[in-house]
């Protein structure tokens, strides 16, 4: 074997080692990131009230979660858990819907503004994104106290719209810049009313941006803890986040949370895999 061949071999081996090393590093990080989630998943299959205590394999917790009744202990599963799930969903859908409407209108308005006004509003729009949740929460808490508004579902909803809408504006904006600016005018010139022009011409163009904004708002709302904590008041309104926090502070953790989040995680995993397969298929088709 010539020395050139040897050199080439050595190089390819080095490259291989490097790639394997890199892959190994990524997987190691992923294992670390997923270890706690895996723990939740594993311990969703055992009945013990205490998280981390294995008392044998069973689907009991899943059963409890769906029936709302713990047949072994003969007690109801904490009804506050279901209320928390309900309010999390209601608040997320409500806030995301309002944010999408408000944000889309705002984006269209902003797009048609002069650059100075646009700049200052864009700055205002960025404040809720930069502000950490504790400051958004406390500032709104002070506002509601100052105005004498009693805190509850309404105030939480407003608070969630506050930190969700900026992301909707940012997702709709690029669609507007890509859109042909004359389309709307053309529709009006051809006899459409402004409402028709909006509904039939602009909306289809903006839809992808609105959908991604809506989904982003939904996830932000579901995951929020800090803002909800300060705006929910003390009338017993809880979302899953605040419920978990209160639970953890009491010392225990409602065991049914384990199967609940295992199921949420699996659902999202499956959805992402499906989405990924679909986009890959589309990409392949486009190549053909």
């Amino acid at each position, binding site marked *: 074997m010539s020395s050139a061949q040897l050199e080439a071999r050595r190089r390819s081996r080095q490259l291989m080692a490097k790639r394997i090393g890199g892959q190994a590093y990524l997987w190691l990080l992923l294992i670390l990131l997923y270890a*706690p989630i895996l723990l939740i998943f594993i311990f969703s299959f055992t009945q013990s009230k205490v998280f981390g205590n294995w008392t044998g394999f069973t689907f009991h917790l899943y059963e409890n979660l769906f029936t709302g009744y713990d047949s072994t202990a003969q007690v109801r599963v904490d009804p506050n858990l279901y209320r928390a799930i309900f309010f999390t969903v209601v608040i997320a859908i409500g806030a995301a819907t309002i944010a999408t409407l408000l944000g889309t*209108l705002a984006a269209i308005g902003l797009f048609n503004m002069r650059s100075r006004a646009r700049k200052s509003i864009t700055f205002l729009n960025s404040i809720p994104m930069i*502000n950490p949740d504790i400051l958004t929460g406390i500032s709104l808490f*002070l506002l509601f106290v100052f105005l004498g508004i009693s805190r509850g579902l309404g105030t939480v909803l407003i608070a969630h719209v*506050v930190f969700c*809408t900026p992301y909707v504006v940012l997702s709709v904006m690029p669609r507007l810049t890509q859109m042909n600016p004359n389309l709307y005018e053309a529709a009006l010139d051809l006899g459409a009313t402004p409402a028709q022009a909006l509904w039939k011409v602009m909306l289809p163009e903006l839809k992808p941006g609105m959908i991604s904004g809506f989904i982003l708002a939904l996830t932000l709302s579901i995951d929020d803890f800090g803002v909800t904590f300060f705006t929910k008041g003390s009338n017993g309104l809880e979302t899953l986040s605040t419920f978990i926090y209160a639970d953890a502070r009491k010392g225990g953790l409602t065991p049914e949370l384990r199967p609940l*989040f295992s199921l949420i*995680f699996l659902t999202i995993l499956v959805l992402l895999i499906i989405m990924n397969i679909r986009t890959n298929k589309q990409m392949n088709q486009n190549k053909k």
Partner: protein
Amino acid sequence: MSKLTEIASARRTWAWPYVLFLVLFVVLPLLLILYYAFTTPGGDFTIQNFIKFFHTSEAVNTLIYSMAIAFITTVICLLLGYPAAYIMAMADFKTPQVMALLFILPMWINFLLRTIATVELFNMFGLPLGEGALLFGMCYDYLPFMIYPIYNTLQKMDRSLIEAAQDLGASKANVFTKVVLPLSVPGIYSGIVMVFMPTVSTFAIAELLTHNKITLFGSLIQRSFGEGGIAMWNYGAALSLIMLIIIAATSFFDQERDHDAQKGGLL
């Protein structure tokens, strides 16, 4: 022409509801923090709230400690996250997006529950719940926020620049330090800000991770609004204002950098 301007001005008004909303629910609340910070519970002007803060060594120390923890967390996330983002962006996997998605996926599980699971992990291995657990938990929670922006900038980078540097005889180390690293600076900055801001202001994670052994500045603020009662709100507002200044300074620093990066891009 008059019709055109009419239409344009009409659409300009569509942003007004949101502007009103922003003024009422973003600007006014922030001004209220300012107002409460400089008043007594009775509503008289005072700077007593700040004097109290600077005279309570425990409070000042907590602020310094929180900033140190946030700083260390940010550095660890950068050291762990940059190589990961780099490997992902440079490797020619069949599906690089899948890897990126895998790093974001944990964020879909409620972060409090994940934090509690981390505590459980520490318990299982018999590790103490102290500073170590706090740092581990914080890095664990915010690592994806570091990886993602860096990965994004590295992925958008023009690959031919690397090839050009190689063709012109740059060594591997030089290609990295003189081409790749400078080009990824915008991503690094947004990663730093995205990790530093939430870690410096967090209040629930520290409580859970250390079983209330360690108090961070965020918890101090939260307590003055929770357990303290109305009498403590003004003090809490003063603490919030200090936090707000730190956040504003951090984000300003990021924006300055952004402009530089854009200018560099234009050149």
